[in-house]
């Protein structure tokens, strides 16, 4: 636990307007404590200290997008429109949402794939011009490049070379060495199941969840995405929306995600009018190939770096991504789309 955590928890408690030593002050709920983010909860308030060095203007623009009424059914809205400062970190405040239960064996039948896909489709359909502040680029490619840099900084490992070869055949934009070609869309940038929370259906909490909007009349109550929202705006920005589908796509391509689950996700995305993939019938891999390769490389690179640091062997699942990198290097993405959007 960092020294930041107690101060951050105090901020969350203040924000929840609870007194020091209130009944819910123990134990402090530390939701995440990593080098790039510390997240704590007090009652219904979550405080997040963003990565050291996070540019304030970019974070403020991302916060403004999350607070925008047009995205109230898509992104969790923050409790305040501007970040505050705590020591050398920028802090944002959020209503607590219930995450997907990761301790459940999370069977393929119960993962909210439809909700995830529907939220992404809504996000990608959002008109960029209506957002209050111009957004920076989505950080997906930057994260992939950082994972490869971390691999290079780690001690030598025999699995590093197939990962490097798979990385080398990617186009420059996917390696964060050139701007993303094609029309920009609003993208999340780091989708995984930890990025979904269920907001309380209790109408008394409605105001807390969406401080900027009134509940919309006639809003259908049965759609699967209704109470789910996307969280974590650190990588939010403009870019290729296929990147947001690429992590599930990579899991599927690596044989980890069942075809049924992938199909549920993709069909729900298409049914919600998601613009990242061509309409029904056409091969989605025309646009998914490059981002899914990049996510596979990113996953393999991080797995190796972590295994080296822990002085352990790669597990069976991690090996799956390295194997996929070997196959990727042999079949370069030479049909990289340039104007399908």
């Amino acid at each position, binding site marked *: 636990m960092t020294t930041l955590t107690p101060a951050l928890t105090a901020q969350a408690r203040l924000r929840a307007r609870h007194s020091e030593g209130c009944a819910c002050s123990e134990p402090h709920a530390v939701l995440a404590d990593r080098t790039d983010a510390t997240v704590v909860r007090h009652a219904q308030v979550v405080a997040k200290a963003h990565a050291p060095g996070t540019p304030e203007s970019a974070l403020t623009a991302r916060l403004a997008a999350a607070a925008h009424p047009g995205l109230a059914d898509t992104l969790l809205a923050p409790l305040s429109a501007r970040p505050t400062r705590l020591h050398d970190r920028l802090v944002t405040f959020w209503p607590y949402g219930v995450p*997907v239960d*990761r301790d459940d*064996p*999370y*069977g*393929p*039948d119960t*993962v909210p794939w439809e909700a995830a896909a529907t939220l992404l489709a809504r996000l990608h359909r959002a008109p960029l011009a209506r957002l209050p502040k111009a957004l920076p680029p989505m950080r997906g490619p930057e*994260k992939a490049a950082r994972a490869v840099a971390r691999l290079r900084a780690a001690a030598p490992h025999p699995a590093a070379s197939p990962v490097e070869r798979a990385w080398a055949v990617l186009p420059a934009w996917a390696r964060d060495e050139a701007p993303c070609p094609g029309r920009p869309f609003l993208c999340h940038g*780091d989708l*995984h*199941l*930890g990025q979904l929370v269920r907001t309380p259906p209790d109408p008394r909490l409605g105001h807390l969840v969406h401080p900027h909007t009134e509940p919309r009349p006639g809003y259908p109550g049965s759609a699967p995405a209704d109470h789910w929202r996307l969280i974590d705006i650190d990588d939010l920005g403009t870019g290729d929306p296929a990147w947001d589908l690429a992590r599930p796509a990579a*899991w*599927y*391509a*690596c*044989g*980890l995600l*069942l*075809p*049924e689950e*992938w*199909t549920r996700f*993709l069909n729900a995305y298409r049914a919600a009018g998601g613009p990242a993939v*061509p309409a029904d*019938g*056409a*091969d*989605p*891999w*025309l646009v*998914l*190939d490059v981002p*899914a*390769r990049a996510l596979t490389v990113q*996953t393999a690179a991080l797995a190796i770096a972590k295994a080296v640091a822990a002085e352990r062997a790669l*597990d*069976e*699942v*991690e090996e*799956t991504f390295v*194997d*996929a990198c070997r*196959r*990727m290097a*042999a*079949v*370069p993405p*030479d*049909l*990289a*789309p*340039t*104007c*399908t959007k």
Partner: protein
Amino acid sequence: MQCPKCHAPMHTYNRNGVQIEQCGGCRGVFLDYGELEALTRLESQWSGHQAPPAPPAAPAYPAAPAPAWGAPHTGHHQDQHGHHGHHGHKRHKSFGHMLFSS
């Protein structure tokens, strides 16, 4: 532009600087005059490549398409254990963790 074979829309791609058209339906490729020669020239400059990669196969319907580099069983019916295999499917612990990680 429409595919002359299946009439699905064709998309323009850039392969090593050469513009080519590929059909979104049957994945057939259309080359303008001189483009095949340009590609062949580029191909021969790739030292260390024993053979050009095979073009990706047409998706097997009705299974979900998968990329050419996918694990051998993706895109096909992977359930080897009968119809009930998916229900009560337990994920590998490491993948379970991965579902929630950046």
